[in-house]
C-alpha cells in the first residue's frame, strides 16, 4: 500500500459509487492534511494583515508570510528571499513578467521564442506584448517523439531573441524539455529565459542558480498547496530594473497626489493585502514534498508511468502521443486517444468507473494544431497514485470502444 495516501483525505472518497482514482494531477494536485491544517492554524491563531500593524498578531502574520517566502527561496536555491514574489498562480506570474520585463525589454523587430507546446498562460501574455511592441513571437517545434532538438534551439534562438519562454515539462506530453541547452543558447545571444516550472517543480528539484534561470514561475495548487498562491522568482538585478505591475497598498514608499515611489523588493511587486494563508499553505506543501523526497517521488512516478505505458500499449486501438519510453526525458503525464472515440466520451466513460482524467486541448491549442489532433485524453500521476489504480484505469479503457458500439 502507498504510505502517503492516508495523508490525503480526498483519496478515500467515492465518485459515482466507485473509489476515486485521481489521475488529473497535472491540472491540480490533492492536499495533504498537513497543508489543510497549516491554513486552519494560521486563521485560528495568527491571522492579521501583515506589515501594516505594529501589534503582536500582525508581527506573527508578517513572520509567517516571510518564513513562507524564505522556505520558497531555499527550496529553489534562490540567493535571497527578495527574489521571491508571491502571485495568485503561475498565470499571474507570467503576466507580471510579460507586462513589466517584456514591455521594458522588447522593441520593434525583437523576438520572443516559446515552445509550440507551451500552456496558453505562457503564450497569450507574449502574444499581447509582442503585438503591442511590434515584436515577433516565434516557436520551437517538436520532433516526432515530442522533443525539442538541439538543431531547433540553434536555429530559432538568434541575435534578435530577447526573451525565451519555455516550460521545463510539457503539461500535455509530459516531455522534459532540454532547458539547460535552451538557457545556454539564450544567454549566448543575450536573451533572458522565463522558465515555466508549473509541471516540473511538483516532481523534480529545481535549482535556479544551477540552472542560471532568469525567471521561473509556478503554482502552489499543482504541488500540494492551496489555490490562490503562485510564485515568481526573478534574479534580483532584473527585478530591480523592472517597473512595478499591479499598484496600490503595500508596494509603495511615498505617495503624493500625482506621484509615487515604490517599495524595495519583494514588496514592490505585491500590491494589496497578500494571501498569507495561501503562502503558509504553500510552505506546508513544500515541507511535505521535502519529507517525501524528490528521489522517492521520481522513483514512484517513473515506476507508475512505465507500468501505465506498458499496459496501455497492450490495449488495442490506443494512440499515445509523444515519447513512450520512460527513460527518454519524459514524466508521468500521458496524452492518448482511443481510436474513433472522442476524448470527451472516453473521459465520461472512465468517470463512470470513478477515474478522473482530463480530455480536451489542455490549454495548449497551438500544440493540438501542430500535432493535428482536435483534443486528447490525459492521465497524469503523482506519488500518491498506485499500480492498482492503473489497473482500474486500464480495465475501464478496454470498455470504451465497446460502449460506443465498436466490436473491439
Amino acid at each position, binding site marked *: 500500500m502507498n504510505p502517503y495516501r492516508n495523508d490525503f483525505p480526498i483519496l478515500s472518497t467515492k465518485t459515482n459509487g466507485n473509489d476515486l482514482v485521481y489521475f488529473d494531477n497535472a491540472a491540480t494536485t490533492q492536499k495533504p492534511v498537513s497543508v489543510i491544517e497549516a491554513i486552519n492554524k494560521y486563521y485560528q491563531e495568527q491571522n492579521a494583515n501583515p506589515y501594516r500593524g505594529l501589534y503582536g498578531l500582525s508581527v506573527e502574520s508578517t513572520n509567517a508570510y516571510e518564513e513562507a517566502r524564505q522556505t520558497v527561496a531555499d527550496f529553489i536555491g534562490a540567493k535571497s528571499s527578495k527574489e521571491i514574489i508571491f502571485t495568485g498562480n503561475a498565470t499571474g506570474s507570467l503576466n507580471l513578467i510579460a507586462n513589466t520585463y517584456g514591455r521594458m525589454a522588447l522593441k520593434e523587430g525583437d523576438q520572443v521564442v516559446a515552445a509550440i507546446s507551451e500552456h496558453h498562460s505562457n503564450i497569450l501574455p507574449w502574444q499581447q506584448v509582442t503585438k503591442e511592441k511590434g515584436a515577433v513571437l516565434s516557436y520551437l517545434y517538436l520532433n516526432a517523439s515530442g522533443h525539442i532538438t538541439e538543431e531547433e534551439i540553434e536555429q530559432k534562438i538568434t541575435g534578435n531573441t530577447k526573451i525565451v519562454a519555455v516550460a521545463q515539462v510539457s503539461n500535455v506530453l509530459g516531455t522534459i524539455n532540454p532547458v539547460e541547452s535552451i538557457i545556454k543558447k539564450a544567454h549566448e545571444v543575450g536573451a533572458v529565459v522565463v522558465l515555466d516550472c508549473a509541471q516540473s517543480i511538483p516532481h523534480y528539484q529545481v535549482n535556479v542558480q544551477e540552472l542560471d534561470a532568469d525567471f521561473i514561475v509556478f503554482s502552489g495548487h499543482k504541488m500540494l498547496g492551496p489555490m490562490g498562491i503562485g510564485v515568481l522568482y526573478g534574479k534580483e538585478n532584473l527585478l530591480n530594473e523592472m517597473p512595478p505591475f499591479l499598484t496600490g497598498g503595500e508596494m509603495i514608499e511615498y505617495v503624493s497626489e500625482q506621484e509615487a515611489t515604490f517599495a524595495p523588493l519583494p514588496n514592490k511587486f505585491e500590491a494589496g493585502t497578500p494571501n498569507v494563508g495561501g503562502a503558509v499553505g504553500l510552505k506546508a506543501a513544500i515541507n511535505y514534498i521535502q519529507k517525501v523526497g524528490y528521489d522517492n517521488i521520481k522513483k514512484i512516478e517513473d515506476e507508475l508511468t512505465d507500468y501505465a505505458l506498458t499496459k496501455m500499449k497492450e490495449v488495442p486501438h490506443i494512440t499515445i502521443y509523444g515519447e513512450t519510453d520512460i527513460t527518454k526525458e519524459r514524466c508521468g503525464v500521458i496524452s492518448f486517444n482511443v481510436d474513433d472515440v*472522442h476524448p470527451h466520451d472516453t473521459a*465520461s466513460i472512465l468517470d463512470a468507473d470513478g477515474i478522473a482524467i482530463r480530455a480536451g486541448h489542455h490549454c495548449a491549442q497551438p500544440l493540438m494544431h501542430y500535432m493535428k489532433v482536435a483534443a486528447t485524453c490525459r492521465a497524469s500521476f503523482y506519488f500518491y497514485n498506485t499500480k492498482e489504480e492503473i489497473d482500474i484505469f486500464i480495465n475501464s479503457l478496454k470498455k470504451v470502444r465497446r460502449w460506443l*458500439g465498436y466490436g473491439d
Partner: protein
Amino acid sequence: MGIEQIYNEILTEHTTSNRNKHHIENPTHVCKGVNPSCGDEIELEIREKDGNIEDAAFTGVGCAISQASASIMIDLIKGKPVEEAMKLAKTFFGMIKHEITDEEQLEVLEDAIVLKDIGHMPARVKCAVLGWHTLEDVVGKEK
C-alpha cells in the same frame, strides 16, 4: 438512468451509422454551432419550404453525445413545420434542465428522451444541446 444507458444502442447507432451526417441539396439555411471548450463543431443544413423543414442534415466533428443528439434531432424535425421544430427544441431544453419531467409531455421527443439524464453529467450538457441550439440559431432567428 446512468451513463451506460445514455451510451446505449440509440446513441451508438446514431453515431456509428452516420445516417444524417452529410450535405443536402440546395439548403436554404446553413449554420455552424461550436463548443469551444470541447472542440465540438456542427454545421447544420436545412431546406425550408413554405414553413416546413423539407430536408436536414449535419456535418462536423465532435463527441458521441453531440453527434448523436444532432442526428436524433434531425430524425425528429425532418418533414415537420419550423414552428413545431422550435417547440420540440423548447421541450428538449426543458427536459435537459429537468424543468419538464412529465413523461407525457416528453413523448414528442421520441428517441431524444434517452438524453434525459444528461443533466446528471453537467460537463456534457453542452454537447447534448449543441445541435438544438444551432437549430434555434438557423431557423429561429427569422421570426
